[in-house]
């Protein structure tokens, strides 16, 4: 699934947004460094908020294998599942698993409370 398509799917399903996005750690950055820093920030949260989960699911579709690896590790730690996603699978296999994650995100009852105290990025 292309990033634009995935972004659209997630935003369509989204009930809220709230990503502030810092200059050094941003899921919205075109720079893999800043996106990876954002994953690191999310990984340090005691509990991920809805927006962080959405951003991590988007990162599953990254062209950067490292970004994908960190994203699925963080999602697995938070949810206890991978939904069949493997960061080293080819794109056409990952697509199906990302669809599972999008489905999971959009049907899980709406946004969860932000308990991290962070800005979500």
């Amino acid at each position, binding site marked *: 699934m292309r990033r634009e398509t995935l972004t659209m799917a997630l935003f369509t399903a989204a009930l809220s947004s709230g990503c502030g996005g810092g200059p050094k750690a941003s899921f919205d950055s075109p720079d*893999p460094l800043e996106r990876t*820093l954002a*994953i690191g920030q999310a990984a340090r949260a005691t509990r991920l908020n809805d927006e962080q989960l959405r951003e991590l699911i988007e990162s599953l579709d990254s062209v950067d*294998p*490292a970004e994908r690896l960190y994203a699925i590790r963080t999602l697995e730690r938070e949810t206890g599942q991978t939904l069949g996603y493997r*960061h080293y699978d*080819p794109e056409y*296999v990952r697509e199906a698993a990302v669809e599972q994650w999008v489905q999971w995100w959009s049907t899980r009852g709406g946004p969860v409370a932000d308990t991290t105290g962070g800005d979500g990025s």
Partner: protein
Amino acid sequence: MNRDAHTDAHVHMRLISDPRYLSGARELVTALARRLGFDETTGCQIALAVDEALANVMRHGYEGATDRPIWIDIWPLEGGGLRLMIEDEARQVDPDKIKGRDLEDIKPGGLGVHIIREVMDVAKFERRPEKGMRLTLEKRLPEGKPAGASAGERACGDV
């Protein structure tokens, strides 16, 4: 010693350490893996591992120099599977110290070794006798899967 003249590999390839040739190496490995009986998904995974290995040589071994040699040798494994050997003339490092960064330390790069070890059954780093490093990779076919070409073609996409 002429490195190119001393190999019994079924496939032998020499490329220079220019990232432009990474995609060509990936495509070769993907195609050969498929011909040796791997399904398309596993072929793409093996290609990703090789891509990470080559990128490590270019980035860290040769420190970005784009004119240094890299050799790739490929053999079928007895019983099904393949062995790849990637050699270079880069600075030698202690093989025991080649390990991926702590995965809890989230920052870009440095995950090639993790990815290689996750994908391949064997990933062995060693110093070459003359100079440079050698990485031997092996991937076995799943039990009960006969060796032979798998049908169909599908692009791996961005590995």
